């Protein structure tokens, strides 16, 4: 029964449960296993369970504390007026409207640029490029490395290429292009994983019907991998939504008292607006910042929910 069993087990149903001496002298339980080893195994199990539980709780408790702190601090400040007002140097009048609009503009544009390019790249790498050639390996390694480059470095790149080089200036377009570069590697890698998960048997079935590669991609590969691709893409977009560093470098403003009307306008985004408020000397602005953080978190949770809903929708369609 167990390689830990020592000696012969006592006859079944014969004798009381509990410790019995064996010919090796070690106490045995009714299943013939060593009582001491059994005890030790149980203790070990309990200890590891405790460690894992503590680790899980650590993250959850910290998050709860943070949320509690922020929500408490924002009470009385987060209201409709806050959502619909432009920023102001008076904390009572300050609102988040221009940052919210700026964030939506930037993220919308980023999604529009990064998702198609990311999916196209992943499709090329997985379906068209010859695997194992030096070129495809080089591309693959570089994409993985790019995913690990600090965001501020992308800011420098964006400043050089989009703001100055292409002459887009300190516009939403420059910001969105920079953020697109930042999240492209993540989108590509997750989309590749999703494409790899398409069963070979389905692709074979499609090809065997005399269907071309592109028709197989649109008919089987993309529908099957769409949930995974979208989940990756939306999570990447959420990450971009919380970025401040690269946008500060490519010239997002800290104080914008108007709403952007086109991609060439100057702008600010939620994280920068929040950062700006927290660095004000007046105590009241800390509450304004908290209210801003709540807005940002709600926005992030909303996009994540959309990701989950989209995934479920496509999954149902495929099942």
């Amino acid at each position, binding site marked *: 029964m167990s390689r830990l069993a020592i000696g012969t087990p006592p006859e079944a149903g014969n004798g009381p449960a509990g410790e019995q001496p064996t010919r090796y002298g070690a106490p045995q339980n009714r299943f013939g296993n060593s009582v001491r080893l059994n005890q030790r195994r149980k203790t070990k199990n309990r200890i590891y369970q405790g460690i894992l539980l503590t680790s899980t709780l650590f993250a959850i408790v910290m998050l709860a504390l943070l949320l509690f702190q922020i929500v408490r601090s924002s009470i009385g400040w987060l209201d409709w007026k806050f959502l619909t007002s432009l920023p102001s140097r008076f904390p009572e009048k300050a609102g988040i409207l221009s940052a919210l609009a700026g964030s939506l503009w930037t993220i919308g544009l980023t999604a529009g640029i990064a998702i198609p390019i990311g999916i196209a790249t992943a499709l090329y790498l997985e379906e068209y490029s*010859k*695997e*194992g050639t030096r070129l495809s390996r080089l591309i693959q390694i570089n994409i993985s490395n790019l995913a690990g480059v600090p965001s501020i470095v992308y800011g420098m790149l964006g400043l050089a290429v989009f703001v100055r080089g292409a002459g887009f200036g300190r516009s939403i377009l420059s910001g969105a292009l920079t953020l697109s570069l930042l999240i492209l590697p993540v989108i590509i890698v997750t989309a590749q994983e999703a494409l790899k998960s398409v*069963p070979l*048997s*389905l692709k*074979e*079935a*499609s*090809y*065997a*019907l*005399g*269907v*071309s590669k592109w*028709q197989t991609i649109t*008919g*089987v590969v993309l*529908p*099957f991998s769409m949930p995974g691709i979208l989940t990756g893409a939306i999570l990447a977009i959420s990450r971009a939504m919380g970025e401040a560093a690269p946008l500060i470098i490519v010239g997002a403003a800290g104080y914008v008292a108007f709403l952007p009307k086109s991609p060439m306008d100057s702008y600010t985004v939620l994280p920068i607006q929040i950062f700006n408020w927290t660095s004000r000397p007046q105590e009241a602005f800390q509450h304004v910042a908290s209210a801003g953080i709540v807005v940002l978190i709600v926005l992030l949770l909303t996009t994540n929910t959309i990701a989950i809903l989209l995934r479920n929708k496509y999954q149902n369609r*495929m*099942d």
Partner: protein
Amino acid sequence: MAVKVNVEHVDFWYGDLHALKDLTFDVPEKSITALIGPSGCGKTTFLKLMNRMNDFIPGTRATGKLIYHDRNIISYDVDVVELRMKIGMVFQKPNPFPKSVYENVIYGPKRHGVKRKADLDLLVEKSLRQASLWDEAKDILNRSAMTLSGGQQQRLCIARCLAMEPDVLLMDEPTSALDPTSTQFIEDLLVRLKEDYTILIVTHNMQQAARISEKTAFFLLGEVIEFGDTREIFLNAKNPTTERYISGRFG
């Protein structure tokens, strides 16, 4: 019987592995040809050479002639997409698309220009009838194919293949994943289909080969040891190895 495919001195390599060695035989039209032999002896490789599904495996190479309608299937100027429209394939494990039954059947035709709803409806009924699945499936055409049983899924795969109106059907152990009842069903189906189609079937089931096929090719280590009338091979095989394999003494 007229000949559908001439196999002439066909060799095939996976990299350095010589998987098919100098195959030569004729596949007769409108009949069932069974490919038998132990695992790993090249039956599936040969089958997949017929519709060039081996092209997806890097490092493969083929020489010789596989003449089908006066063209050599193996040569590089053959349009494989067109070839596969004419030479359909059913796989070992049922692999319906995770779409509705209806969508599964019209998957191929829809992508080759059949667009009108009425035409598609007709095609679905015709193909499902041919595959003896119509009675079971006519009320659940919009249900996902994944909800069907294994035997139904395999018949759906056959219907999907027939919807392309192919000429040759390649079957790679189509019943090995099915229970005896479904197997029986599909065997009956194949016997009916051979009125109109040329069928090549890989099978590990000797009785199946004996029951349904006209010709049998016995594969061993990449070679065709014996090819001929099924009755002849099963009753008095010329080659003692064939005889031993068929009677179950090895393999």
